[in-house]
């Protein structure tokens, strides 16, 4: 989907999906057999003595919704930071779209098409919603410094073109009303949506969502689930999701990897993982 902006039709609101018995939208089966987009092979990450991640391997296939779950402090966010190139693992390898990555800065990961939202919203408080999402287009905008000085010629044309794309995202996320409002003034739920909008503006191939529904009420959660599924179906973006709400995880994701104290204890479809004894012990605690 990293060609020119998507055509008009694809952005139409997604029609209602085939409802599952318990009313939550379900992912189409069989998608987790596509070619591997991201492979994490025995990655370990240490901060001084603390082992945040130890020898974890899993893969994320193109087009699937991959969930990463585990109790607090299991290393989920650290794993995202490793994928994002923010932390550099002491050992292990990460291959993205077939090429193994050497030591890398986050901006290079972004250039390769990895976008990210954050556990506690990391928006640019000094700017409006529109500016925040337009900043997501930073990688796509090419007009050089001297055109920016003049602004009225091609630089303005480029601004307008990217503004059009951003407007579609704003429609998609229903945040037209708060377009010119400084982000700092928005309620928490809307800020999460703007952050998703900013990530989408980067037209990513892999979208990392760090607890997108934390602190949301039921109605907001359903909206966010709809957005995630629409993004996955309409744009075909692969989604890696960290979430604590088991209902959401089980319904949205094609496959789930479970981490505990930095180690992988389970990996498979939601049903397999739900019945895995180790996962139950990890969550419900074991009397031993």
């Amino acid at each position: 989907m990293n060609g020119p902006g998507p055509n008009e039709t694809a952005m139409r609101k997604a029609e209602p999906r085939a409802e599952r018995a318990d009313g939550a939208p379900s992912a189409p089966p069989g998608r987790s057999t596509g070619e591997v987009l991201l492979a994490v092979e025995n990655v370990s990450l240490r901060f001084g003595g603390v082992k945040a991640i130890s020898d974890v391997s899993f893969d994320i296939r193109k087009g699937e919704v991959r969930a990463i779950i585990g109790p607090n402090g299991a290393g989920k966010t650290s794993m995202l930071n490793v994928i994002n190139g923010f932390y550099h693992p002491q050992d292990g390898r990460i291959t993205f779209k077939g090429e193994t990555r050497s030591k890398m800065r986050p901006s290079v990961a972004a250039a390769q098409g990895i976008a990210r939202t954050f556990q506690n919203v990391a928006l640019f408080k000094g700017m409006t919603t529109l500016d925040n999402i337009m900043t997501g287009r930073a990688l796509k905008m090419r007009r050089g410094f001297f055109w920016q000085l003049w602004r009225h010629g091609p630089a303005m044309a480029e601004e307008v073109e990217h503004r059009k794309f951003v407007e579609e995202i704003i429609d998609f996320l229903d945040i037209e009303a708060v377009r010119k409002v400084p982000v700092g003034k928005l309620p928490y739920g809307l800020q999460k949506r703007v952050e998703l909008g900013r990530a989408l503006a980067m037209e990513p191939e892999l979208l990392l969502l760090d607890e997108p529904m934390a602190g949301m009420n039921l109605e907001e959660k359903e909206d966010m689930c709809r957005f995630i599924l629409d993004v996955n179906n309409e744009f075909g973006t692969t989604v890696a999701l960290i979430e604590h709400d088991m209902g959401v995880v089980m319904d949205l994701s094609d496959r789930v990897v479970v981490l505990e104290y930095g180690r992988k204890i389970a990996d498979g479809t939601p049903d397999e993982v739900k019945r895995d004894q180790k996962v139950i012990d990890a969550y419900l605690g074991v009397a031993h």
Partner: protein
Amino acid sequence: MLYRETGQFKTTYAADMAVFPLRQDRIGLAVILAAALTLPFVAGEYMLSAVMIPLLIFALATIGLNLLVGYTGLLSLGTAGFMGVGAYACYKLTTFFPDVNIVVWILVSGFFSAGVGALFGLPSLRIKGFYLAVATLAAQFFLQWCFTRIPWLYNNNISGAIEVPGRTLFGEFVTGPNASAEMRYLVVLAVVALLTWIASNLVHGRIGRSWMAVRDMDIAAELIGIRLLPTKLLAFAVSSFYCGVAGALMVFLWYGSAEPEVFSINQSFLILFMVIIGGLGSLIGSFFGAALIYVLPIALKAVPPLFGLSIAAATVEHMTFMIVGALIIGFLIAEPHGLARLWQTGKQKLRTWPFPY
């Protein structure tokens, strides 16, 4: 009633992104530019060369520093040093090539200080916040030491200072002793207006957004693909360019000659306070800040003779210091986000006038 946006709808994105969406704003701007242009024919020489020219030059330096402190969140205390680089570069250029028009050299000298600024901006990747002030302070003191220690910079003048030669523009003297205040004012006005417009373009475009992203949360900015070092260095370079041009304007069109003492640390502090009091991250705020910190003391000094009181010059000076200090604290309490925010709230009130909300 007179400041309403009802009935002004935007049909294209370009119109919506315009810097002055409201018609009243555009009219207001046109009126102010017209006033600025007719000022030379109305105001006396004192008003021009002791109040307006310094105000515009300080405003330009404040805009430069605002791009760095207000828009990119990088604290710098080296402004006077970079202004010095601009002034000395312009002096050397006009001595080597005297026949090139002086205004060209004033703008070109900005590139030299942009280079020096970027060089001293390098530590900004590793050091953050108040600690970064040290790197720029090192620049300030080192540059000031160079201005005294390298005679080549001031053409080995015995006096150790730059002496500005007479240069003309369209046949009229612009620098040197017989340059009239009106000519000097018009050149300064032109340069400041041009650079303010360019700053506005920069700040509203892609570059301005990446600066503000780096200011608000540089980790998130990096994760979006904004490379931190080039963005920060560009901020340092553009900011130093503005300071360099302001320095060249100050020496050539205002002072007429300059000792290294002119580019001292006090000047850097003065401009930093103009930025912050004017309003971080606002170009209009830079003008307000310059007006409050530079023009106010002069205005205060003119008050006693108005009422016929003859207070000793020194006491007037002391009183001015106290009043300016108290006013600064007062303004901050009234509006911590600087005069620009006061201006916006004022406009907001105008919009709902005469109703309270």
